[in-house]
């Protein structure tokens, strides 16, 4: 019922937006975005006070083993599946690799938030933006919503924009930062992983194969593997037992994988949505997906192509054993728009990940017989 009510609300607001041409002075919701609700609340994803993100009926929270770095923002993810003709939830289809196949009507929601103090991250959370991925009949659409100052709702803001934010970091230092909400095209830059279709990135088997602490209606909590639960509640069809599904390491938890496994997973999550054979980074010839062992495509003794000043006077993308000579590391350590990678969505250096990649390059096998340093 809650689901149905929410859909009605969404439709009503969408109709309003259409009639208004430019329903709000900011201009979001024009053109191809006119049919979407101007406010996040209209999607009916959450019950009670919106900022508390209490999932409404039919909305599942989830987490990933290794996530994209977004300037240290904490992320809160939810998915809502549509109802099938019989009134039951229409499940997603399990895939061992790549994102699950979600039915048309699926809404995936991700809220980016900062705590006032990372030493007590559960307190004083300030949501900045909520990005929706909505599965329409003709494909997925990305919609950025920015939270208002009162944190009562978030508004569709297709051009994104800067938000001033500050926090105390895990080491106790005060950080002042201009956080950047990407625009609706930039959603596609990352999510068009195959260079053609916009697709979800996170919800795949290896990433979801982990425990999640679910709140119980009686006020207690319940720990359950996400894949097992999704299967149990009819969210996912074709799921093997979690023990048989792939499981990605947690990049910063050493026991979850070797340095190589964790580094390759981190690169896969943070870089490979563009740097694969068909994504927007294909033109560089650099392929940072995990699971392949082609050293040149991985950047080892590979010359840069269009890096420009991004080379940092270094000759190869990756020099085994020599992180300080590797362009890849140089670009992770920079925030200069002409140098930094990823190009969008990162305005701070992911210091801990840089250390992992440094370690990975340091421990890397020395050059094979075909590789020359020339």
């Amino acid at each position, binding site marked *: 019922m809650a689901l149905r009510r929410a859909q009605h609300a969404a439709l009503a607001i969408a109709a309003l937006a259409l*009639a*208004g*041409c*430019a329903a709000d*002075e900011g*201009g979001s919701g*024009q*053109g*191809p*975005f006119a049919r979407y609700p101007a406010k996040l609340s209209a999607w009916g994803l959450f019950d009670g006070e919106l900022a508390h993100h209490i999932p409404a009926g039919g909305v599942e929270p989830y987490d990933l083993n290794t996530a994209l770095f977004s*300037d240290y923002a904490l992320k809160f993810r939810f998915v809502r599946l549509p109802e099938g003709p019989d009134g039951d939830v229409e499940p997603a289809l399990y895939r061992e690799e790549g994102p699950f196949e979600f039915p048309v009507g699926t809404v995936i929601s991700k809220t980016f938030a900062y705590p006032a103090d990372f030493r007590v991250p559960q307190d004083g959370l300030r949501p900045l933006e909520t990005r929706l991925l909505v599965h329409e009949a003709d494909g997925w659409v990305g919609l950025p919503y920015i939270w208002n100052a009162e944190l009562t709702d978030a508004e569709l803001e*297709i*051009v*994104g*924009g*800067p938000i001033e934010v500050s926090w105390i970091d895990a080491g106790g230092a005060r950080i002042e930062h201009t956080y*950047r909400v990407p*625009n609706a*095209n*930039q959603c*596609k*830059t990352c999510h068009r992983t195959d*260079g053609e279709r916009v697709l979800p990135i996170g919800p795949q088997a290896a990433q979801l194969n982990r425990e999640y602490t679910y709140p119980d209606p009686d006020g207690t909590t319940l720990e359950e593997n996400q894949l097992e639960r999704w299967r149990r509640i009819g969210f996912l069809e074709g799921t093997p037992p979690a023990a048989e599904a792939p499981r990605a390491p947690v990049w910063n938890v050493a026991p979850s994988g070797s340095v190589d496994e964790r580094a390759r997973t981190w690169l896969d999550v943070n870089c490979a949505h563009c740097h694969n*054979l068909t994504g*927007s980074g*294909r*033109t*560089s*010839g650099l392929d940072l997906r995990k699971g392949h062992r082609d*050293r*040149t495509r991985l950047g080892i*003794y*590979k*010359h*840069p*192509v*269009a*890096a*420009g*000043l*991004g*080379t940092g*006077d*270094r*000759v190869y993308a990756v020099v085994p054993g020599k992180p300080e000579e590797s*362009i890849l590391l140089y670009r992770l350590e920079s*925030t*200069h*728009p*002409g*140098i*930094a990678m990823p*190009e*969008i969505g*990162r*305005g701070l250096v992911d210091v801990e990940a840089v250390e992992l990649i440094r370690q990975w390059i340091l421990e890397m096998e020395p050059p094979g017989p*075909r*590789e020359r*340093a*020339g």
Partner: protein
Amino acid sequence: MKHNLLCTSVCLLTLSACAQEDATLRPGDNDHRTLQEALLTAEPGAVIELAAGHFELDATLSLDVEGVTLRGQGMDETILDFSSQAPGTGGEGILATADDFTVENLAVENTRGDGIKVEGTTGAAFRSVRVEWTNGPDTNNGAYGLYPVQVTNVLIENSQVRGASDAGIYVGQSANVVVRRNEVWENVAGIEIENTTGADVYGNRAHGNTGGLLVFSLPELPVKDGRDARVYDNDIVENNLPNFGKEGAIVSTIPAGSGIIVMASDNVELFGNRIHNNQNSNLAVISYLSTGRAYNDPGYDPYTEGVYIHGNEFVGGGESPNGDFADAFVALAGGAFPDIVWDGVSNPDKLVEGEVPADLRLYIENNGDADFVNLDLGSVFAGGEPNVSTDLAAHQGALPAVPQPVDLGAATGGAP
């Protein structure tokens, strides 16, 4: 009554908001928002007009709607200034990922990364656009000015680029390309046609760059083996600027004073160009092997095959050969580089009875009194002594099948 009042105000709002959609966009308080919103909400085929004035942009402008024209009032009137581009907002000034994008009559200044990039589309036209780093040559300038990559049907005309720390006009991994009547100066490379098939490059003026015009094929890229370029009627003058590129990029190896370099591209015709006073070498034809750069790409062809150089005018140049390549020459032959320098490297696997087949040879004729050297580095690579030769007789004749003119079709305005 109250209801009517509300309706009136809403209707007014609606009217004014809708009317603005076709109006010219003007500089204001938040130029990124104004322009990015127009690009996001444009209908396919829309023309977005920008007024004269100075737009201050703190983030990349991205476009993903087909057939859009972004039009200013002139390259000295409508200025998009990216000096304040913030971290995490993109790697270029304008990024277009939709087919049939046209940008014209405006300037893009001081991007922190590339100027205008078009990626993976069909149909891209750059007309009367200026991309400039106004501080002049600087290692920390953005890499490319005009930058189509993996685009089919590209037109770049009547444009200007200055200050790029890599190439002013860079066409990469593309097909069917016309680059004409542009002016490029004070870049590391003026114009670079790279891993591209079918390019007509004519009527351009490249001066005061480190290297004027490069026709390259590079390894370890998804689209390889560029071919079929016609380079004609260009002025390639005094490209003697010290190289200010960052090490690592291929252009950082270009010796200052390079006029035209053809490297590893096949079937290239160069004619009617005026190549003057490029102090390293006016025109060089080399294989990738002569760069000494290692690569791991079994599918890549490093040899330059089928080059036809005719009817060009050479003046001065070659007085100060520099770089590793030149060192080898000076050691071997000494003195100034002749007008046309060939590294003398051919694919040994393709020789027929010891001869390079006719369609893979270097042909040189009717270039006035232009002189020539064959450095015969092929013999050096084979472990022997080079037979350095200045004899043009072996290179008389015409390429059996010259490249055909590029036909862009209607997508980019029916050019040429």
